[in-house]
């Protein structure tokens, strides 16, 4: 008998049960895959770095005289247990061309390396280590193939200083050290014979060589201090920094986790609604069962069994679906990483079990009403239940112009707000996550973050080959070089000037201890445009600004002094301000323009900047981009916002996640609307029949139902839009903070936040509610006779 009732219960509310089952499935799917993703990525970074042989400390030297400088330190430093040293050649984007001579896009500096001789492990798509390589063939790292729409078997033309080699691409190799979005370097892994062709060129060997060294050590700080003695160091960071470079991949993982949490909450909200609805509808039956002496436990177990069965079925389906979803979500991460998956399915299963437990617990609490109500209460009050509080808040008699449908909809939402809370929670949560992501993605491709990469300019020209030419040269050479560029600009009818941000590596003595620090210095940049978060901008050559990250690392604050060895002089510099920088993950300081910098200490250059004397419009800038691209031998000319986006690197991934989240939000909105409207139509059958009986047309009834959802969704959208700005600051700023920029001026686009995205949700709700409200057409006025 018990199972017979249960069977009827499941059969009777087929649509409702199916939707609840769908939500349970979605919840299990997202909890499983979300947990899997986060745990795999969190543990996987270390796993990946170990497999690749990154070690505890990494040093990269680059530029003139860089090769050999490191060797002495490696041999003499007792804190070094072991090391792996690779000699490489640095190149630029214009080093590479496709087989047909067409242009190729790469991010940052290009690195050419002898694969068979490499001490570092790379991984192919099967996570095997490629070592065997034929002459004339190569592997490439990073998202090179994808970015340039190339495939295995395509030909790559590598040319540097007159030396050219054509290589057939054998595959993509994962590079743990430089393959992250944040590092973003591409390595061309070639055969020893091909590599020697470049290596044997004197200019290349002198100007473009470098070393990459992975060190195993028991004392990181000792190695760090020893590294301060090496020249031409471009990168000297512990393993933690390399690991941190995967923070962007972690952002994607965390967004998936947040999404999962959002869906879990939604599933439970929907479950609670459907449970309450079921219980209310079955009030009379419950009363009868109680009246004939069936124990509360038995009645409760009827519903608990139903939801347990649904939770188990939904979770099993969800678990199965979570496996491909995990792979799909991780694919954006594993494209550049080799992640351990030994725990994979176990985590998904744990997620599914968690969903079952939570659903059963929730059902248990929701069915407390069975215990509370007496049989008489339940039978007498029937489906509506007894109410003692005043219900109607508005009065039709006082509403002079409001139409019936509009009045009924407004009055319903105001009179029974509790009924709509679950919709508001579901819609607000979903929209909030979408809007937070929209704000983040917009910021990542806006000018707002430019000061975290350097000074503002009208256009940015990224040319590693040009940068290589000036690196390490004298100041006179640089002045001449930039004057020539400015003159050419003038000849083209574009009055303005070039500038560039450079990074220097110097030793700085702080509290008697020497540290290797990377300093930023602008050449012909607009220093006044830099943003300092605290203190005052450096006013003279012996004043510096520091990031809060390096201040914390070096244990210094505003007002402290550091003695910087500029090579030509040792200058005590006062820290006058804090600023923010994404460069070197925030571990940098900034010099005043008059600081006595020595070009021989230059370790990196940022993109060339162009500042126009007039104030060009966006359209003019686009036109000028084309002119500059045509007249200068440069790789890529970008506007300020484009430059920020390409520096951050994960914008395409973020956009993909944003669209995925919007898609899921629309799906959730549709499901919640269907569930609620189905329950409303069922719950209000008598009222709909009555309205029809007194002559109200179907259209008015649809409008009444649709308007309620529109009112509620508008309220939810206003709430989400209003919360999106503070919530973006609260949730996303700590992630930016990990990368060196904690105070972010978010690019809020009011049209998107307050109109376009909310409108998408409101229209979705409207259409769904309308389609479901059409089901009330089947309710006839004569049904008033059949209502229990």
């Amino acid at each position: 008998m018990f199972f017979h009732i249960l069977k009827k219960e499941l059969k009777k509310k087929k649509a409702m049960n199916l939707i609840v089952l769908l939500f349970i499935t979605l919840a299990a799917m997202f909890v499983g895959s979300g947990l899997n993703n986060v745990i795999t990525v969190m543990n996987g970074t270390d796993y990946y770095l170990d497999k690749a042989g990154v070690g505890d400390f990494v040093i990269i030297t680059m530029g003139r005289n860089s090769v050999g400088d490191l060797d002495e330190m490696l041999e003499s430093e007792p804190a070094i247990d072991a090391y792996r040293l690779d000699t490489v050649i640095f190149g630029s984007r214009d080093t590479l061309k496709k087989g047909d001579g067409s242009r190729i896009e790469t991010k940052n500096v290009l690195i050419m390396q002898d694969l068979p001789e490499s001490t570092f492990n790379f991984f192919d798509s099967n996570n095997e280590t490629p070592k065997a390589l034929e002459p004339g063939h190569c592997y490439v790292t990073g998202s090179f193939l994808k970015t340039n729409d190339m495939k295995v078997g395509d030909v790559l033309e590598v040319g540097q200083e007159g030396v050219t080699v054509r290589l057939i691409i054998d595959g993509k190799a994962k590079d743990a050290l430089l393959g992250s979005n944040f590092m973003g370097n591409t390595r061309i892994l070639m055969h020893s014979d091909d590599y020697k062709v470049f290596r044997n060129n004197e200019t290349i060997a002198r100007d473009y060589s470098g070393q990459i060294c992975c060190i195993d050590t028991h004392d990181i700080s000792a190695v760090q201090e020893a590294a301060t003695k090496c020249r031409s160091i471009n990168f000297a960071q512990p393993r933690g920094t390399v690991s941190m470079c995967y923070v962007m991949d972690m952002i994607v993982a965390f967004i998936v986790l947040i999404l999962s949490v959002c869906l879990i909450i939604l599933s439970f909200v929907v479950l609670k609604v459907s449970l309450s609805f079921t219980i209310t509808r079955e009030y009379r039956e419950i009363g009868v069962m109680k009246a004939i002496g069936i124990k509360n436990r038995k009645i409760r177990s009827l519903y608990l069994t139903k939801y347990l069965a649904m939770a188990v079925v939904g979770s099993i389906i969800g678990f199965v679906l979570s496996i491909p979803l995990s792979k799909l979500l991780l694919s954006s991460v594993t494209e550049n990483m080799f992640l351990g998956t030994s725990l994979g399915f176990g985590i998904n299963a744990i997620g599914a079990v968690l969903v079952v437990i939570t659903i059963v617990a929730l059902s248990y609490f929701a069915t407390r009403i069975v215990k509370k109500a007496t049989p008489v209460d339940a039978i007498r009050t029937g489906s509506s239940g007894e109410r003692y509080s005043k219900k109607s808040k508005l009065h039709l008699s006082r509403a002079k112009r409001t139409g019936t449908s509009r009045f009924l909809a407004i009055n319903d939402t105001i009179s029974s707000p509790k009924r709509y809370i679950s919709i508001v929670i579901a819609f607000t949560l979903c929209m909030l996550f979408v809007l937070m992501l929209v704000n983040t993605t917009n910021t990542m491709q806006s000018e707002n973050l430019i000061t975290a990469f350097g000074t503002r300019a009208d256009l940015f020209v990224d040319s590693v080959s040009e940068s290589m030419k000036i690196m390490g040269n004298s100041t006179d050479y640089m002045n001449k070089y930039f004057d020539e560029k400015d003159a050419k600009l003038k000849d083209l009818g574009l009055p303005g000037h070039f500038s560039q941000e450079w990074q220097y590596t110097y030793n700085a003595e702080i509290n008697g201890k020497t540290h290797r620090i990377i300093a930023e210095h602008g050449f012909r940049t607009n220093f006044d445009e830099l943003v300092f978060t605290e203190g005052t901008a450096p006013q003279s050559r012996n004043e510096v600004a520091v990031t809060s990250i390096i201040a914390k690392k070096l244990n210094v604050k505003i007002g402290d002094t550091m003695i910087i060895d500029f090579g030509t002089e040792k200058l005590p510099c006062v820290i006058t301000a804090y600023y923010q920088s994404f460069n070197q993950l925030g571990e940098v300081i900034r010099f005043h323009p008059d600081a006595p910098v020595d070009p021989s200490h230059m370790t990196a250059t940022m993109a060339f900047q162009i500042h126009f004397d007039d104030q060009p419009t966006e359209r003019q800038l686009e036109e000028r981009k084309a002119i500059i691209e045509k007249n200068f031998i440069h790789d890529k000319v970008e506007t300020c916002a484009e430059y920020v986006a390409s520096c951050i690197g994960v914008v395409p991934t973020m956009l993909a996640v944003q669209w995925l989240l919007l898609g899921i939000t629309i799906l959730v909105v549709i499901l919640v609307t269907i569930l609620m409207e189905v329950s409303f139509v069922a719950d209000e059958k008598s009222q709909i029949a009555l309205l029809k009986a007194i002559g109200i047309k179907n259209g008015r009834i649809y409008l009444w139902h649709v308007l309620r959802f529109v009112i509620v969704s508008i309220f939810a959208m206003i709430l989400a839009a209003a919360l999106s700005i503070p919530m973006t600051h609260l949730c996303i700023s700590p992630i930016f903070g990990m990368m060196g920029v904690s105070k972010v001026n978010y690019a809020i686009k009011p049209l998107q936040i307050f109109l376009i995205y909310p409108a998408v949700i409101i229209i979705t709700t409207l259409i769904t509610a309308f389609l479901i409200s059409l089901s009330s057409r089947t309710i006839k006025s004569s049904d008033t006779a059949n209502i229990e």
Partner: protein
Amino acid sequence: MKKLMEVKDLCKTYVIEKRQNNVLKNISFDIEEGEMVGIMGPSGSGKSTLLYSVSGMDKATSGQIKLDGKDISKLSEKDLSSVRLNDMGFIFQQMFMMKNLTIMDNILLPAVECDKSSETRKEKVARCEELMRKLGIIEIAGNDINEVSGGQLQRACIARSMVNNPKILFADEPTGALNRQSSAEVMDEICKLNKEGTTVLMVTHDAKVASRCSRVLYIADGNIRSEYKMPQGLSDRDHERALNNWLLDMGW
């Protein structure tokens, strides 16, 4: 007297699990303007089905129903809604009301929807108040539906059904859910409306209620078995006694 409603060869068939159930079989009858007609019969005889079919609330399988000369059996759902709103009133046994509206707003609702007259909202409110005053429920105008008694609620339902001055009032066991006193009060109101000119067609199980009608149709197995016309000049008690005797003859 003018014929307000003409029902001819009305049939209603339900198909349940492929089995045909002929609930109404070629029913024909007329109702004259100002009449108060009762429908009686055993449970399951088709009384309510007849009422819902002739009022256009349910589609008849075949037959013709004319209201004031207009064949409503051929009308679309949309046009039927207009007829129900403007020309018909309906009182149910269960006192269905919109849950979130006050008594006044429930009564006002059909008036607001009705476009028969060019009254302003204020005038419609005034008319509702007048109607409620007449039915003795003005003091509960601002109350919620759960704050009033069953009798008051049914009178509110009568007020709602009368708010658009319908040509005919249909009542499905209007006193079925009420105690004797409330029942008498509600019937007094319906009779009063009838005396004022409203035509009434009412289904009832109660001979006392039916005795206040001018004519009673007895329906059994989907057919009108017989018709009873109230004799003139009898007291209420004699009316009831005469009706009871007739019902006994019908096998009631």
